[in-house]
């Protein structure tokens, strides 16, 4: 391992611009003559739009124009799409209601955009937006997933019972049979609380239309600018791809929420042409972000787990109602199906699984992928019921898990996935050791002396990420393939530019991707540039989400590097007058076997472009290669997290006393960055378990947690102290990519919630506690009367 190669703790190359204030985020960009957009949003959860009067607002200072669905329809701008077709059990396709970029005829949630004001300044646009008079006919609404199929509030005409689909996976008859023969059945009702992603940079866009070249440019806060370009071209009908450039510059966090194509961004592009080519800029207020960013989670589930007399799991039955919100967001439909129920086997050998999912419309913001997407929901359900079963059977929860672990690979689960590699027992052993599990009782006693209840909770998670084989996702209904592209350009002086379809918004690709190049070509890491986020530079790509940039994105780079090496060998052979077969390449030097002839990588690069020393009809000039990598399988990172909490019995305040995370990510390129991903993911998981929850008022349909006054973001003091947060890694090589990598971005957010809640229920001696386990919730759970009633 070199100082900057694979496995090295290389400090990040991208840091300097961020720590000196030189990062360039979308809102930092200003184009000449730009205007500002402000959206008029629905104050009602559900209403018909009877009339929109813009006359007064149009006369206000600085107003350039105001648009509503009327102009959208005039210009035949297509609606937002959901790119993954899910079929119901009965074979019918999912019921997708219309999703225009500006609401037409009806608003379906508080914050739905109704009109856009374009003005000379942001303040002017905002002032005029307040003067747009919209007359609404208020309709009954429903914000509750559990009530969606019973309510009178019908969100879309196409779905009379608000049901988008009724989907199932697994063998129902076999699972029922397994339950009939079971010695013990554990049942649990669970709610997976709705979360609001809250990347610290809010969404922003600048749409710009050049009237001369008839070319559009969109600067936007996107995790996948190429997908944005494709969708805007193909479905909104704004511009063909060669007339549209999408640039996602520095992006301040995504966590899934910036994967999707939203109405506001499309509106900016469209409106720029409509007003004659002046750029249109929009930056979301945080309040708008709360209302209009796609939310995450929001499941209501019933689960049953069947065991035989030896404590071996024989079956799992799950029914889940998943809120989709008011519209189907870009990838929403696959989240509670193929990213959720396919993971219900967890790390366990469960012969029979049957799951049914009802996806429903509610009068709330659309729900889509948020860090982990489906897999946190699956892990929460399974790890909660497994822990509960262990307690009911009076088996130590670690031992109960071990008894049921999958130990042979590959392992085909009853819910599609074939796990390729893993060693779950090793992760458990390491986590038990790092967390000093054996001495838990003495820590519990010490806490008790201070009037605190201490509890311990486990989470043995697995996730499928590095999404994914295109043919596989295509067969399951995906509208796109999920490969990744890379282009490696070696310059004549031997420096390297890598153009990647992955997008970094905090993940540190400029460093880790360069480490791969440095390792492979022996080039100084500072002589490698990573180019991403611009559709005019990178031809095509699928972007960053689902922990796929390493396993898929870097594999594409690795394959392009293979081609570079092969080509460079041919050049080196020609220059050194040897056979290509006799050329070795190591540590940046080409040598001829059995001789002292050698050439440095830079010399070969130069020779490739000079072209004097070889026949250019046999070897093409230049050193530039491309690869489109389509993986052969998902990757399956897994691990065991153990959380200890201390609950203040008087106030209900829960503190994370310690947290231990042991993960198997396969090959790690940069441990520093991977640890950072785990720490950040765990913080989001602790946030879900203890702090965060989107709360819509049942009666008014208003979002009550619409700012940081009420939505509780994890803060420094909520996290365990440095010495109490222990990280460990185990290693099994991933067989489906040459680097042996798995994904690490979502692990913490997936693993942490059940670990925390299992610890709290253990501390309190209760069966369940709702997330977020706020002081109020915990205090309520501790009331003796309530406990007695359970």
């Amino acid at each position, binding site marked *: 391992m070199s100082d900057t190669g694979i496995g090295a703790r290389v400090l990040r190359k991208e840091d300097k611009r961020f720590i000196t204030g030189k990062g360039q985020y979308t809102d930092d960009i200003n184009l000449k003559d730009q205007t500002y957009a402000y959206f008029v949003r629905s104050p009602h959860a559900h209403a018909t739009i009877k009339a929109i009067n813009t006359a007064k607002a149009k006369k206000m200072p600085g107003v350039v124009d105001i648009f509503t669905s009327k102009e959208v329809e005039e210009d035949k701008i297509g609606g937002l799409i959901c790119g993954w077709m899910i079929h119901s059990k009965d074979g019918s396709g999912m019921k997708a209601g219309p999703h225009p970029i500006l609401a037409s005829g009806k608003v379906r949630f508080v914050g739905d955009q109704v009109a856009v004001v374009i003005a000379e300044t942001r303040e002017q646009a905002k002032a005029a937006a307040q003067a747009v008079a919209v007359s609404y006919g208020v309709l009954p609404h429903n914000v509750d997933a559990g009530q969606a199929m019973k309510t009178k509030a019908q969100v879309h005409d196409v779905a009379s019972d608000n049901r988008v689909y009724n989907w199932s996976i697994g063998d129902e008859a076999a699972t029922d049979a397994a339950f009939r023969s079971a010695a013990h059945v554990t049942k649990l009702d669970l709610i997976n609380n709705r979360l609001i992603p809250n990347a610290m940079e809010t969404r922003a866009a600048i749409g710009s239309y050049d009237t001369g070249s008839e070319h559009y440019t969109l600067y936007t806060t996107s995790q996948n600018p190429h997908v944005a370009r494709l969708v805007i071209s193909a479905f909104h009908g704004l511009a063909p791809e060669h007339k549209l450039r999408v640039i996602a510059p520095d992006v301040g966090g995504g966590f899934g929420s910036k994967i999707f194509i939203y109405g506001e961004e499309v509106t900016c592009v469209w409106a720029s042409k409509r007003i004659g080519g002046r750029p249109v800029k929009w930056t979301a207020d945080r309040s708008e972000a709360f209302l209009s960013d796609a939310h995450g989670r929001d499941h209501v589930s019933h689960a049953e787990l069947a065991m035989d007399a030896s404590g071996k799991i024989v079956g799992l039955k799950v029914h889940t109602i998943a809120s989709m919100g008011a519209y189907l967001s870009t990838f929403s439909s696959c989240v509670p199906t193929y990213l959720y129920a396919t993971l219900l086997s967890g790390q366990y050998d469960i012969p029979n699984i049957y799951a049914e999912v009802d996806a429903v419309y509610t009068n709330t913001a659309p729900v889509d992928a948020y860090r982990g997407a489906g897999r946190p929901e699956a892990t929460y359900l399974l790890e909660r019921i497994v822990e509960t079963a262990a307690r009911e059977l009076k088996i130590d929860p670690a031992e109960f898990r071990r008894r049921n672990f999958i130990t042979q690979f590959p392992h085909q689960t009853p819910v599609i996935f074939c796990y390729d590699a893993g060693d779950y027992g090793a992760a458990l052993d390491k986590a038990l050791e790092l967390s000093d599990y054996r001495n838990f009782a003495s820590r519990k006693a010490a806490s008790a002396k201070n009037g605190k209840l201490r509890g311990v909770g486990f989470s043995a998670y697995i996730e499928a990420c590095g999404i994914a084989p295109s043919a596989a996702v295509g067969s399951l209904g995906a509208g796109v393939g999920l490969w990744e592209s890379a282009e490696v350009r070696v310059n004549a002086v031997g420096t390297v530019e890598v153009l990647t379809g992955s997008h970094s918004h905090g993940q540190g690709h400029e460093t880790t991707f360069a480490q791969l190049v440095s390792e492979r070509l022996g080039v100084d890491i500072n002589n490698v540039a990573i180019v991403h986020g611009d559709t005019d530079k990178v031809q095509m790509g699928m972007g960053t989400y689902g922990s796929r940039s390493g396993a898929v994105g870097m594999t594409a780079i690795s394959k392009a590097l293979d081609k570079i090496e092969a080509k460079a060998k041919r050049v080196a052979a020609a220059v050194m007058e040897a056979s290509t077969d006799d050329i070795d390449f190591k540590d940046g030097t080409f040598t001829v076997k059995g001789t002292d002839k050698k050439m440095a990588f830079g010399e070969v690069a130069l020779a490739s472009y000079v072209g004097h020393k070889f026949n250019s009809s046999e070897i093409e000039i230049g050193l530039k290669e491309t690869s489109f990598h389509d993986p052969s399988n998902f990757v399956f990172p897994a691990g065991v997290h153990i959380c200890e909490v201390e609950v203040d019995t008087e*106030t209900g*305040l829960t503190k994370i006393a310690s947290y231990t995370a042991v993960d198997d990510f396969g090959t790690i390129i940069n441990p520093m960055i991977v640890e950072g991903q785990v720490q950040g993911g765990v913080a989001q998981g602790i946030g879900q378990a203890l702090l965060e929850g989107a709360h819509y008022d049942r009666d008014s349909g208003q979002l009550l*947690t619409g700012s940081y006054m*009420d939505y509780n*973001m994890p803060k420094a003091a909520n996290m365990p102290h440095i010495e109490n947060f222990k990280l460990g890694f185990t290693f099994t090589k991933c067989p489906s990519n040459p680097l042996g990598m798995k994904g690490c971005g979502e692990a913490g957010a997936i693993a942490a919630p059940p670990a925390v809640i299992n610890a709290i229920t253990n501390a309190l001696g209760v069966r369940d506690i709702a997330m977020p386990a*706020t002081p*109020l919730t915990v205090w309520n759970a501790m009331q003796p009367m309530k406990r007695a009633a359970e």
Partner: protein
Amino acid sequence: MENFNYHRPATVNAAAALLKKSKGGSYMAGGHTLLPTMKQGLASPSDIIDLTAIKGFSGITIGKSAVVVKGGTTHMEVATSAAVKKAIPALAELAGKIGGVHVRHKGTIGGSIANSDPAADYPSACLGLGATIVTNKRKIPADAFFTGMFQTALKDGEIITEVSFPIPKKSSHMKFPNPASRYALVGVFVSQDAGGKVRVAVTGAGPKVFRVPDMEAALSKSFAVSALAGISAKAKGLNADMHATAEYRAHLIGVLARRAVEAAK
């Protein structure tokens, strides 16, 4: 937010005159309540009269029997004042729990008290210590100052120039913050004066800061945790929201009062 006329007078009298002349002006000190309210469109004063340039408007004087804090003194100044820490440690501690660092650098005692936010911290110190609020016109005892939610006895144009806190024998402040906003979900300030009389003031729990007579009577007899046994705050009339029910708030008043008595010094 709406535009406004901006003034930065050098004297209290000039400030009062500017406010009187304005259509619907507002004083501003640290601005950490007013500006967020204006940004949300919930207030749009015609004029802002910035008090921060008034000479002699901030500072702390420790007298024999009272700590006098000038109206424009920031929370950070009170929190870090060695003299306050010595005279009324609970007052310095309370100031150190207001908002975050950035708020404490700008927020002022006068601004906090004049706003009478039901979840603000300072009102509990005023009531819990029996402070006197001094304005450019008169002296108002804390007991008569906080009249309701965001309402005080201040008349139009009146400016808080200083707050005088009697130095107690013992005092203590306990705060249970709202998990999201960090304002007081419940805060309890307890003091015992030289004659043994006890005050217990509660913030965050009701529409305005209030005292708990039952606890005060019991603690005045015996300043010990045991004196509070069997005394509980009533949930009726307390605030209820998604972060805390009235019952939970009532319960927390009891918990924090016991902890405050235990920690009093």
